[in-house]
């Protein structure tokens, strides 16, 4: 954009600092709004409770191997531990998409205009928006960590640090994706459409609630998943995000451990670029 030359007349020219502060203001607005949105907060807390405490504990006994009649865990973790990182991803998905949907609100209720007639270049408006949404989503993702002890997931400072980084990358990529979708969906169809058409399919197809290789739980060794299902899981980028989180929190990877972070970074770059192309047109 040709829109960031220093002004000679205004004492507060749009220097790098002023532009950075502008991004900060947009980021801060997202955080304030999220903190005041009680519905979103309730969702962010109840979702992990449901998935970890109810589904996780409920299915825990079925995720095991039987060796010569003896019931024991063949694999070095329980079902609870297995889905725990995936629930982090789920919480992030919901929150990211929700904050992207707020873009539709902004458009509907005019606030977007206030930002678009400001001297901020559009790419920075979008950056602030996505960073804000991503920060909120990352915080919601880390809410799940509170349940770590119930799921027997050990938490170390190092795993939290790297975990937050992975969560942030996933949040950033997904918020960009959400913006990309939101700028095509002009009407207020509501969040239900998003959650059913985007979030849940991506979540279920990310090897989040079952391992890609059924042989992991010995009892199912005879079963092989149909090719179409394996294919869908393999092309879903969320699969690799979940794998990276799993590698970090429980030390288990189904793919090359480097693949996860690479896919996450690629998601961020590609989705943000596409979102920008759409957003620029307005």
């Amino acid at each position, binding site marked *: 954009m040709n829109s960031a030359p220093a002004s000679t007349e205004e004492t507060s020219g749009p220097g790098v600092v002023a532009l950075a502060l502008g991004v900060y203001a947009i980021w801060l607005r997202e955080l304030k709004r999220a903190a005041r949105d009680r519905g979103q907060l309730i969702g962010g807390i109840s979702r992990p409770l449901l998935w970890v405490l109810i589904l996780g504990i409920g299915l825990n006994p079925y995720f095991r191997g039987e060796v010569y009649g003896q019931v024991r865990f063949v694999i070095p973790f329980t079902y609870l531990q297995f889905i725990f990182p995936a629930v982090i991803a789920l919480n992030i998905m919901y929150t990211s998409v929700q904050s992207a949907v707020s873009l539709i609100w902004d458009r509907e209720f005019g606030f977007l205009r206030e930002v678009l*007639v400001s001297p901020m270049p559009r790419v920075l408006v979008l950056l602030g928006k996505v960073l804000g949404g991503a920060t909120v989503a990352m915080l919601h993702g880390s809410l799940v960590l509170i349940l770590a002890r119930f799921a027997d997931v050990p938490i170390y400072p190092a795993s939290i640090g790297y975990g937050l980084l992975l969560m942030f990358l996933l949040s950033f990529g997904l918020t960009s994706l959400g913006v990309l979708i939101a700028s095509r969906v002009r009407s207020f169809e509501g969040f239900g459409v998003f959650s059913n058409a985007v979030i849940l399919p991506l979540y279920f197809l990310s090897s989040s609630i079952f391992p890609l290789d059924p042989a992991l739980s010995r009892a199912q060794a005879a079963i092989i998943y149909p090719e179409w299902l394996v294919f869908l899981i393999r092309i879903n980028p969320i699969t690799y995000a979940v794998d990276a989180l799993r590698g970090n929190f429980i030390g288990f990877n189904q793919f090359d451990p480097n693949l996860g972070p690479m896919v996450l970074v690629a998601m961020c770059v590609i989705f943000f670029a596409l979102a920008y192309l759409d957003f620029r047109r307005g």
Partner: protein
Amino acid sequence: MMDAPAVELQDIGKRYGRTVALEGVTFTVERGEVFALLGPNGAGKTTLLHILCTILPPDSGTAKILGYDVVRQPTRARRKLGVVFQQSSLDTRLTVEENLDFHGIVYGVPRALRRKRIAELLDAVELTDRRSALVQTLSAGMRRRLEIARALVHDARILVMDEPTVGLDARSRESMWRYVDGLRAERGLTVIVTTHYVEEVESSDKVCIIDQGRIIALDSPERLKAMHGHEYIRLVPVDPQAGAAIAERFPDLVTTVPDGLLIRIPDAEFRRNFLAEYGNSIRQLSIDRQSLESVFLAITGRQLTAPTAPTRGTSK
């Protein structure tokens, strides 16, 4: 650049599909003027303002804000503009002060200056005691005032307002104008405002009457009134027959309006004779002095505010 006029429009045109929203719009607004765009709904006023605000590119022509082209130098142009949109663009989930502060940061106003301006503006629009209230708890009039204050947190030279008084009661409308006048005197602002309330533009420096995307008159209110204005008798007949009889008698002078008749007074003699003759057929009567409403009527043959003619343009 230093002595460029506040706004310079040259032959602006815009279409939405086959609908012509604006055609050949050319005018100049000098610094410090209050410039009113008057016209019925759908005349193209909002489209024109959106082009000025750099959020809608024109199909043809050029528009300059203090010498900056809105298409080629949008960021510089925007820095000079304070915009109040027709639909509120406040963030209702933020407080009054947070909305102002957000605006200040995004426009790059340094913190100390921001604090000072915000305090002054809150005072000017009498919202100081609501500074920590969420915007969603404010009344429509308060929100308007807040939006005007917000538009001036940065160093805006031109205040652009699109139908700022729609949805406000008469008292809020009046007080809103009082605030604008106060701020204008203080800062030497240029004000560009669209409206379809004629009484609001009587005190402006220039009135530009737009209809169906074209400028049909552009001058000071006094001169427009002197050129085109007439006095009118506005009356409600006792029954429809009486009304029909009057309309038949003076086909050239009578315009039917929703609640009765509007009769142009060609000369002083006419009024006396008319009242002597038809006094008994009239239930209610008032005399409209020369007003811009009558100017609009004289030029277009239509009422400004009444939905008499189907509007053709769209006010996107």
